């Protein structure tokens, strides 16, 4: 699929970005941003993962099918987590029920 040869320079750039983001996320965790701490940490994680997937794993240069496979993997994980969570978050909404 990836006959495309990614230039070395790009690898180094991605690598630099990943290291930088790691430092940022560690640094940010020591600053109190209220609920945004979690948002920042997770956003950075997602960005890092995306960089790895797209460039180190060559998905950027791959077929639509590969992209679809990757996306569905994460989508299904999302389904599992999200729907399970709806149960826990909506417990006790109905009054008169000791959950």
């Amino acid at each position: 699929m990836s006959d495309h040869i990614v230039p070395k320079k790009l690898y180094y750039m991605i690598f630099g970005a990943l290291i930088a983001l790691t430092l940022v996320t560690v640094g940010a965790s020591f600053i109190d941003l209220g609920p945004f701490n979690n948002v920042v940490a997770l956003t950075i994680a997602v960005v890092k993962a995306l960089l790895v997937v797209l460039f180190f794993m060559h998905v950027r240069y791959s077929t639509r099918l590969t992209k679809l496979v990757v996306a569905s993997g994460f989508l299904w994980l999302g389904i599992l987590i999200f729907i399970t969570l709806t149960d826990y978050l909506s417990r006790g909404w109905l009054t008169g029920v000791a959950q």
Partner: protein
Amino acid sequence: MTESGEHSLALRHQFDTVEQQRDASTLGMWVFLVTEIMFFGGLFTAYVIYRTLYPTAFEAGSHHLNITLGAINTVVLICSSLTMALAVHGAQLGSRKALIACLLLTILLGSVFLGIKAFEYADKFAHHLVPGPNFQFEGPFSRQVQLFYSIYFGTTGLHALHMIIGIGMLSVLAWQARRGRYSAEYNTPIELVGLYWHFVDIVWIFLFPLLYLLGRH
């Protein structure tokens, strides 16, 4: 992944073209990685649910993790991803030297990661933070903190297991590469193991903030 590259360039009988063979192997690897996502997914779900239920306990638990070691390990793993990517690059260019060197570096970095992890585990052992009958935690919700550590050991243990398997596969590749098995034309196994290795890296990219960072300040 065991499937590919038994008789190097040889086209196996069920395929018509080398192209088709390679496409099939790559797709197979990706589908396999999806199953891996779901495999870790069960644990991630447990994490999300329990963190929602017991936020304070989880924060208390994560305070006992060593953020410096976690961060160093993250960097180590990212470096290993880079060397892995370079290994694939070397293979694609047909440079045997670069390929072997990068594979060995990747193995080395992976081992460093495991070493640090082992050190962290030992520390948790010493402090009775390993869930089970010997678990001790001073503080109000020791049972929920224990849950945090169940998930900590579950996820990182499984991750470490994947690293070990990865290192094993890399060693085989390095050995085969030394014997001249791979070339610019044929390097699918390198590429596939590379995908696997990057995947393991991604798992850690999520584990690190989830376990070490959230609720830290």
